Every structure is written in structure tokens, then in C-alpha cells.
């Protein structure tokens, strides 16, 4: 082996490769390193046989072990549901108003209801359940149809003013634009503003008072405090579904409002409906 070349500076053998006068030193890797590399290759081949790996025209090879992340998730979900089966049964059977907030059942219902709410309800009512114009704020203590767990669950189960559920909550305010003159509407609006605000035109409101008593009080009550039997909102408080300024009120009186909500009982399980009811009730406004 006389043709071995040795670098003078370092005393290390060279590979004999020279580029522009720069020689490549040969500090050989350990043999076991090479075997490790081969071992990883063998492992990789075994892995692609054992596990889903090779892409085919439709799908991929399924692997000898039959492993699937989807199946694993679904098994996890099944196991999780089996673990919670007792709580679910309790939830379906429970008298919702009787569940103490310190109960595990309450905690479970709030957690479950919260995730259903964020998936199904937040599109209209908002992630934080603060609602929007026309979509009630569920955090406050003002309720159109009642704010205890049972009333909330009924609203969720059957929905509002929808055609698909015979038991849906239904309120229908007439569009007074067809019956009242503009001046009359202005007077009624001023009267309604006066119910909750000191800053109003008392004379004009007085003109509206008889109109209110004849046309509106049947549902909204003599003092405008509303009627939950009919879903008539309280007009004397600070909370407005569409807005409490004169312009919005004029629009509301002229054309009326017909907000709708789906009957979630047709889409969600009973335990989900109840969980959402308990969740909404727990947000701060529940009665």
C-alpha cells in the first residue's frame, strides 16, 4: 500500500481527491456507524410494511398492523363516551333546576354544553354568547321566553318562529306601518322611549300613551314590562334586542321583527340540548 497519500500537516491519510490543491483528508467513520445506517434503512422498510405508508392511486397501503390514526381517535372517543355514560344518563334524567353548580354533573354539562355552543350556536349568538343586533345576548338577565334551565332548554329544543317544529316558540307582532300614520308611530315610539328614559318629549309621549294602551299593552303589558308567555320583550328595561334609539324603534314598530332560531331538538341529542341549556344558564344571566 505504498500509494497511500498522507497529508504532511496533520499526518492524516488523504482520499487522494484534490480540488484546486485542496486535499480531502480521510478520517474514516466508525464501522458501526455504517451498520447503524443500514439498520435504520431496514427499520424504515419494515416500518412502511407494518404501517400505512405508500401512496397508491386511491388511498395508501394500509400496513400489516392495520394501524389508523382515525380508528385510534374513534376508539378514544368511544372510550371517552363510555366513561361519561353515567353522567350522560344522569343529565338526561336530572331535574335541571336542581343541579348544584358545585356538582360534577353541572361541571360536565357546562363543559359539554360549551363545546356544543361554540360549534352550533356561536354563529349567531357569538363565541362569548354576547349576541348581536337581532340575536339575544345570553349573558344578561333579560329573557324573552324565560331564563331558567327548563325554559332555555325549551327554546333550544323547539327553536323560535320556525316552520319545522310544531312546538316552536311563536310571537308575531303586527307591522304597524299598515295601521298607524307616521305621526302615530312617532308618538308611540316616544312613549316607549319614555318608559325607560327620562330624556323624552313628554307631550309627544302622552299622545302615544293611548295608542300603546290600545294596541301594544295586550302583549307588552300596561307598563311595557313584557310578557314571557308571548315572547313580548320588556320595553322598560335597559336591554334592547334591536336597539332602543328612536330610529330603530320606528323601524321595529313599522315593520315588526321576526327573528328565527332552528329547532335544535331535531339535530342535537337530548343530553346536548340540556348541556347547552345549563351552559347558557351558567353564563351569568340565568334565573
Amino acid at each position: 500500500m505504498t500509494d497511500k497519500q498522507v497529508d504532511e500537516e496533520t499526518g492524516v491519510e488523504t482520499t487522494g481527491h484534490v480540488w484546486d490543491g485542496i486535499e480531502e483528508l480521510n478520517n474514516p467513520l466508525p464501522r458501526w456507524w455504517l451498520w447503524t445506517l443500514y439498520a435504520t434503512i431496514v427499520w424504515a422498510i419494515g416500518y412502511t410494511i407494518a404501517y400505512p405508508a405508500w401512496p397508491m392511486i386511491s388511498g395508501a397501503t394500509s400496513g400489516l398492523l392495520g394501524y389508523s390514526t382515525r380508528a385510534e381517535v374513534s376508539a378514544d372517543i368511544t372510550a371517552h363516551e363510555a366513561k361519561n355514560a353515567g353522567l350522560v344518563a344522569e343529565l338526561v334524567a336530572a331535574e335541571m333546576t336542581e343541579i348544584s353548580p358545585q356538582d360534577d354533573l353541572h361541571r360536565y354539562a357546562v363543559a359539554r354544553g360549551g363545546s356544543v355552543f361554540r360549534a352550533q350556536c356561536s354563529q349567531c349568538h357569538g363565541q362569548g354568547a354576547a349576541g348581536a343586533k337581532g340575536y339575544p345576548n345570553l349573558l344578561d338577565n333579560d329573557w324573552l321566553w324565560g331564563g331558567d334551565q327548563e325554559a332555555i332548554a325549551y327554546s333550544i329544543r323547539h327553536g323560535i318562529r320556525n316552520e319545522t317544529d310544531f312546538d316552536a316558540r311563536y310571537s308575531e307582532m303586527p307591522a304597524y306601518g299598515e295601521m298607524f300614520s307616521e305621526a302615530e308611530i312617532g308618538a308611540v315610539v316616544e312613549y316607549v322611549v319614555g318608559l325607560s328614559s327620562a330624556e323624552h318629549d313628554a307631550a309627544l309621549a302622552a299622545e302615544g300613551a293611548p295608542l300603546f294602551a290600545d294596541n301594544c299593552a295586550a302583549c307588552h303589558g300596561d307598563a311595557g314590562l313584557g310578557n314571557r308567555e308571548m315572547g313580548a320583550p320588556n320595553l322598560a328595561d335597559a336591554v334592547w334586542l334591536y336597539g332602543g334609539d328612536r330610529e330603530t324603534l320606528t323601524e321595529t314598530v313599522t315593520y315588526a321583527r321576526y327573528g328565527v332560531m332552528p329547532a335544535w331538538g331535531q339535530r342535537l341529542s337530548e343530553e346536548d340540548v340540556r348541556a347547552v341549556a345549563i351552559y347558557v344558564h351558567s353564563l351569568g344571566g340565568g334565573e
Partner: protein
Amino acid sequence: MTQAPLYAPREPIFPRRVSGAFRRLKWWIMGVTLAIYYLTPWIRWDRGPNLPDQAVLVDLANRRFYFFWIEIWPHEFYFVAGLLIMAGLGLFLFTSALGRVWCGYTCPQTVWTDLFILVERWIEGDRNARVRLHRAKWDFHKWRLRVSKWVVWLTISLATGGAWVFYFTDAPALAADLVRLTAHPVAYITIAVLTLTTFVFGGFMREQVCIYMCPWPRIQAAMMDPDTITVAYREWRGEPRGKGNVRKRDRAAAEKAEREAQAAGEGQQVRYKATPYPSMPLQVGGAPKLTAEINEHGDCIDCMACVNVCPMGIDIRDGQQMECITCALCIDACDDVMDKIGKPRGLIDYMALSDEAAERAGGVPKSIWRHIFRPRTLLYTALWAALGAGLVYALFIRSDIELTVSAVRNPTYVMQSDGSIRNIYDVRLRNKLGEDRVFHLSLSSDDLLRIEVQGADGTLDVNVPADSTTLQRVYVTARPQDPAATRANTDLRIWVEDKGTGDRASRTTTFNGKESE
């Protein structure tokens, strides 16, 4: 020309037994570190009925780390981060002062390899016997020795892997489960993996782990400088090296030359000046050496003792090498030889590289303290100490009662039907004691604000179970006529008080009024 091989087989290394000061130090360090490793999980520490009684426990399932009287929660992970930074700075400090002292004395790879070599020597004999056995045929004798060695190695490996899992769960209970084969598969798998790695790394890979697998040698080597104390060979003193017969032959000629020189009236010279390393006593034994002999031959008699004892299989006389873990066994070996031939110790020695150059030029080396105490190491020490003091301070100001307040900002506020304004806060209450506690919530602010606890029927007391946290939703309300209801922001402070002990803690937050929109 033929292509040089790209891969080289491992050259087997048969370190010879050595005795000396550093070997003794290494035995001690091995004993202490292994004892700490194996025994720590078995130390008990009473924390009361609801908490584990293991002194050191990494409870991953319950997200707690127990270290004697200290209990770390996940939100206090900065302690762990701080300790890791301290470990990093400590490594900088020790490496800049003493080179790869971690590698040489305390690295588990070094300690376990040392232990495995001890077993090897005990079963198969010292270096020469092992070399013979290595070359021998695989007969009954060789099989018997090898199998006994492997069995002992495997036992140690099993104990090593076994000890590891005890840090993560109650040790006595797990030990019983392991024996009854009822422990969690994770425990068995962990033990199996660690047993295998210990067996392979300590028994067969040894220096290969340091050279090819470990990043520390590169990092540590980059942190050394000319002032760093490291294991080195005094080339000026040792070279030219020569074995006894070479010396004998040259000696006659040298003595002749010396006699002639003395006859010519030239005085004797003693070349040894001072020991460059104070802890290694200079031994000038025997009769004064003849100048000519010293000048002709260095002190190195090329006995290969330093090479034969080296667990890394290198020759320290070749200079600083990436493979050297500075275990100092070559110092012991060489000192032993120097004693025997009546030369001063320290031919191979702990020394700074700048000293080697200074001595070669005939100068006096700097004192060891001036090597160790220099701006760089002082800075590392200061940073390390400051961080440590900070962590200790943080540890002492921790309270057993803690809260965090996160304001719910979707929506920013809620208008109630009577026109009052409500803000919602999620208060996380932490009870770090081993018993249930009742926390009383209250509020302080310059403005009129009212606090309510959700679902508490008007009380402001929240029960927090032992050693756990509770997330409690809290309402703060301003009446319509209060300024806070209208104003954009009002500062407030939420207080929590343990009614039993009177401990208090508080957090500030902001109340949003109508103008915040």
C-alpha cells in the same frame, strides 16, 4: 492508487489498572454519584396525608415536581428553566477553568464505563490478560469469562434502568408492582430501553459514544482557552523520549562528554525549575542528574503507561485531542513511573496550555489561582450566583395561596336589564397546601363596584381542594349611576384570603364601562 477505506472498525481498548491520587478521587466520585442516583428515590419525606411522601418525585401524571420541602407546579416551570440555565453556566465556568472536567469525572458515560471496566478487570484480569483473552479462541474458558462479565454488566444495567423509573412514581409501590409483573408497560419499556443503552454504551461503545455521539466534546473544546487547566504532556521535558536500552547506549557517550565538560571547568546545571502545578509535589529524587543526560534524553522513557491506562485509547503525548476526556488517569500512571525512575512527577500534568509555552521558554508558570480567577470565570461565577440567588429568592417569596385573574373580554361588558354594567372575570385559585381551604374573595377599588361569585348563592367563599386549583367565574357590577358604569376603564384589585390562616394575595385588573366601546 487504491481508495483508502471510508469506514474503520473500532480498535479495542484494554485500559490497564492504575492507582494514584486522581484514581482515588474518581473512585470517590463514582461511589457518591452512583449512590445518589440509586438511593435518592428511596428517601422519604413526610408532606401530610394528601401528598406523596417521596423526597424527590417527578409526578408527571399530576403535574407536580417534589424536591424535599420544595413543590414545583407547572406554572412555576421557570425554576426548572432557571436550573437548566444555571447548569449551562456552571458548565461554562467549569470548562473555562478546568477543561473537560465534567467528561472526565462525572459524566454518566464515564462513570458507568469506569464501573464496567472495573467489572471487566475483576472477571477477566488486567490489561495483558484481557488482550490475551481477546485474541484467544472462543473456547469454554473464554465463553465462561465473557458470559459472567455480560451477566454482571446486565445486572448493573438493569439496576440503572430500574432506578430511573423510581423517580417518576412512588418507589416502594412500583418496586412491588415490578416484581409482581403488574406495573405499567411504560415502566417495563423504559427499564428495557435504559438497560439496553447502559449495557451497550458502557460495555461495548464506550469511547465511541464520546467521540461520535456526544455533542459536548465539541462544545466544551470550543469553550477552552490558553488559561484553561487541562491534562497535558510537558513535551519540553519529556522529549526526546527513549526506552532504557536506548538510554544506556547514549548514556555512556553522554557521561563521557560530561566528564570532559567538567574537566573543562563548566558547572552543573539543574534544569528543573519549579513545579508548575502546586498540588503536585515536586519530587527530585536520587542523585543530581547529569546535564548531558538530561539534555540528550527527555524524562519520557516511552514506557507507554499513559497510553495503556487511557480509556479513550489515545496518546496524550500527541498533544490536545478531541478524544481526551481529561480523566487524569495518565497523570497517575506517569507519576508512578516517574517515582520509580527517580524523576520529578508532573511529566503529564494538569496545566494551562499557556504554561507549557512559558516553561518551554524557560519562564515560570503562572500560579493556578491566577489561571482560575480571571475575568471570564469570575463573570460566569457572578452570573451563576446571581441566577441562583434570584431563584432562591423566588422560592422564598412564593406563597401557598395564589390567584390569577383573566378578564373575559368577549364581550367587554354586559348590560343588565336595570342598566347596570357587569364585567366577567375568570379567577384561578391555587391551594398549594395539603389540605382543603376556603378562600374568601373580595375587591378593592376607588369606585363603587360589587363582586359576586358565580353559583355561590351570594357568598364570596370558594372551597379549593388540597393541592389543586379551581377556576372560579366572578362578576363585578357597577350600578347605572356609578361613574365606573360609564367610564371606559376603572382599576380594581381582586383579593383572596384564606379564612383559616389569614394569608392574602391579590391581583389587579380593569373594569370596562360603557365608554370602552
